[in-house]
């Protein structure tokens, strides 16, 4: 009786292991194999202060491991370039350039998407607790900020995708406002 119960427990635990076979390391490994490409994006922001969501569209280009360009085309052309340690924003004649290492909070916030793309688990875990659900063909990774300064701005980031392709990223801000980024790949390198 006791033996049966015991083996049952062992089997049950084995089953759990089998079920969780798709783990964070595996996902990161998949993502790291993705060497870059071009994608269309639609970004929908839902803000309490606005009567309806605002939508931005454009293209993103990622080149492994550390260059991400986000080119917004509507409603206003704007370019955001994240290259190694430098974040540059260009909007009309305005240019802004920030060194990320000098702004750890901004880094954690802006860099999360790039760390995801490059499958850099260590970088993500510096600022977030990771929780993965689903399987390799349809996964959802939830990032919960572990640093109080980021948590003051952001409740969580939810990333979903299939295999090595990220499909959407949702930012849920501390005040309940949301930003949803949907990604549709155009070509891969």
């Amino acid at each position: 009786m006791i033996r049966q119960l015991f083996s049952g427990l062992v089997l049950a635990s084995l089953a759990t292991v089998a079920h969780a076979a798709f783990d964070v390391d595996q996902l990161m490994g998949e993502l790291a194999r993705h060497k870059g490409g071009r994608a269309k994006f639609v970004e929908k922001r839902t803000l309490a202060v606005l009567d309806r969501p605002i939508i931005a569209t454009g293209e993103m280009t990622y080149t492994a491991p550390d260059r991400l360009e986000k080119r917004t085309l509507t409603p206003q052309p704007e370019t955001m370039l994240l290259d190694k340690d430098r974040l540059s924003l260009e909007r009309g004649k305005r240019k802004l350039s920030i060194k990320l290492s000098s702004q750890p909070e901004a880094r954690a916030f802006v860099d999360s998407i790039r760390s995801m793309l490059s499958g850099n688990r260590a970088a993500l875990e510096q600022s977030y607790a990771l929780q993965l659900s689903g399987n390799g063909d349809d996964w959802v990774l939830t990032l919960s900020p572990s640093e109080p300064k980021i948590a003051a701005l952001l409740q969580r980031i939810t990333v979903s995708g299939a295999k090595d392709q990220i499909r959407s990223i949702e930012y849920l801000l501390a005040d309940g406002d949301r930003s949803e980024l949907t990604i549709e790949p155009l070509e891969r390198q």
Partner: protein
Amino acid sequence: MSRSAGRTFLLWLLAMLAGAAIVWNSRFSADISFFLPVRPSAEQQVLVDQLKEGAVSRLLMLAVEGGDATQRAELSRALRNRLAATPEFVTAQNGDAGSQDAEREFLVRHRYLLSPSVTSERFSEAGLQAAVANSIDLLASPAGLLLKPLLTRDPTGELVELLGGLNAGAEPASRAGVWVSRDGERALLLVQTRALGSDTDGQEEAIALIREQFAAAARSVGLGTLKLQLSGPGLFAVKARATIKREVTRLSLISLTAIVAVLLFVYRSPRLLLLSLLPVASGALAGIVAVSLTYGTVFGITVGFGSALIGEAVDYAIYFLVQSGKLGMDAWRQRYWPTIRLGVLTSVFGFGALIFSGFPGLAQLGLYTLAGVLTAALVTRFVLPRLAGSAFDVRVPQRAGSILGGALRHARTLRWPVIALAFAATGYLVAQRDALWLPNLSALSTASAEDAALDARLRADLGAPDSRYLAVVTAPDREAALAAAERAGQRLDRLVADGVIGGYDSPARFLPSAATQAARRDSLPSAAELRPRLRAALVDSPLSAGKLEPFIADVEAARRQPLLGRQDLDGTGLALAVDSLLLHGPSGWSVLLPLRPAGGEHGVDLPLGAVRTALAGSGALFLDMKGEFDALYGDYLGEAAWLSAAGFAAIAALLAFTLRSPRRLAGVLLPLVLSVAIVIAGLHLAGERLHLLHLVGMLLIVAVGSNYALFFDRIAGGGTLDASTLMSMAMAATTTVIGFGTLALSSVPVLHAIGATVGPGVLLALLLSAVFASREDAR
């Protein structure tokens, strides 16, 4: 002592007492004005004002070292809070987010008076529609999240407009909430003292206070092992003064001790020693009196030059005491005084040439030594003989006489080797002529290499402004100055838009002129006008007009707000920004507009021509501070070369007039010129970094060295050099070499350069004069 001797002594004593009284009341200074031009151009005046009173001259950079990042941040905060509460400091910043809330709050509260886009068009229906649409678009951008909290108060995005003009890249790195160095290993603070940069006492107190507060803060948070590093113009001034003070005492003491030892060794009589020092003391006193009366302020470095003056001024007494003993007073006057007098005159001509320098330090050194030498000679000639009486006789040891005589007879054999050496030296100098002189003023700085390195590191870590490029506008009052700054700013805006410059700072950004503020305030609509306009403008917008009551309230408040004055900035870092750029001088107000290069492919240099053209006619002066510094040193160097040539020509003319023989003139000048060539070539070969004081030293080798060359000329003139003359010359040259040689030990570059040039130069001048003196008559 006879009655007439007593009277002479009394007169001398009275003169000395009067001199001492003047010296007692003199102002001594060890600050940077030693190097700053006496007759500055308009551009140089900006440089001078910046160095003496500019905000940059009042900044001290602090770094907290040791421990871990959290500990450093904790101590940084504790130190900042203490310093911010101390009246000796205008501001203390450490990048703490909390410490910047005051600035943000100020900008938000006064945005409608500060934002350049506030016009009546912006508050028309179309203007509001465009501005709000733009803000909503901005919300969709990554930067939008930071603006969201303010949207209902600032839907037209005035804060964005304000921040857009600021230099976002210049902030230092930040860790654990405070500024840190690029490697993250030091927490950084930036402190502005209330004391001016030129107030060395004030700077010294401020620095002591910072160290005290650091120690107290470290104790209070229990982090006693962390260390403080500090740098800035104030620290350099304090250290330079301490160095000069220490050196004045040390050098004078070394020089005096060595010279006293020589004199005692020869005279073996304390009385003769005291008599010898009488002209020296008179000369040193007269030098300071002359400088104090002429310039009002005596530089510490000038007093430091006293060590050389002692060596030179004691010569006359040596000649008198050694030479006149056997001859008697009258015969000495007849035989030797004319030669000595001529030597005094060549020295006077040499040092006198420096008085015309626009480099104040050099002019002071010239006047100090000229007055000192002249006084020492006069006291020797007119006071010393009466006090000495006739009861002295310096015995010239038989052996010394015969050794010196023998050496002189054999010196001639060295002629050809000396000429060969001089040829080699001249050839070397000609070959190296383009690389001989250091092209910048930094060679004259007393700062040690470690201090300069620490300063450069902290400056780079903090991104502290080096203010290389400045546009300067001046006006009689503050309002006019701010208005002029706004006009110049409009021209600079165009350059920014065209990408010619990266940006610029202006005090008018945080403190616009009253006229501009009033125009902005007048363009704001009342709540009754604004509400319907907003409703019409936002009919199709995702942002409904109903949510914008906070905006309407803020605009209404801004309409009733008094105009901003300078005192409204108090308590924010913006006060520092405005004060450092808006200066009140004796001749009115001036505004500095530091320009930043565009960077990228344009590099770090500004296109000077394009900026000058853009500013032409605006009344703004545009200058490149580094260029001004280099030009200033270039001016000094050119002038020193010119003065040295003129001094040399004057000495040559004096000698030609007195000696009335080209052959004798050549006999005196040749050894001097060869000495100059050999010494300069030798110094350069030895790796000495030659600068303008070495150049001046060349003139002084001729001026001082001629004193000894002239005695050898007595041979050419048909005279002889007996044992006592030779010994007096040897003694006099020894004391002079000791005096200047001591300066070579100095760590103050100005003093070291003169010492290292003139000390060996004089010795060589004596030896070469002996080598070239005619042998036939040298018995």
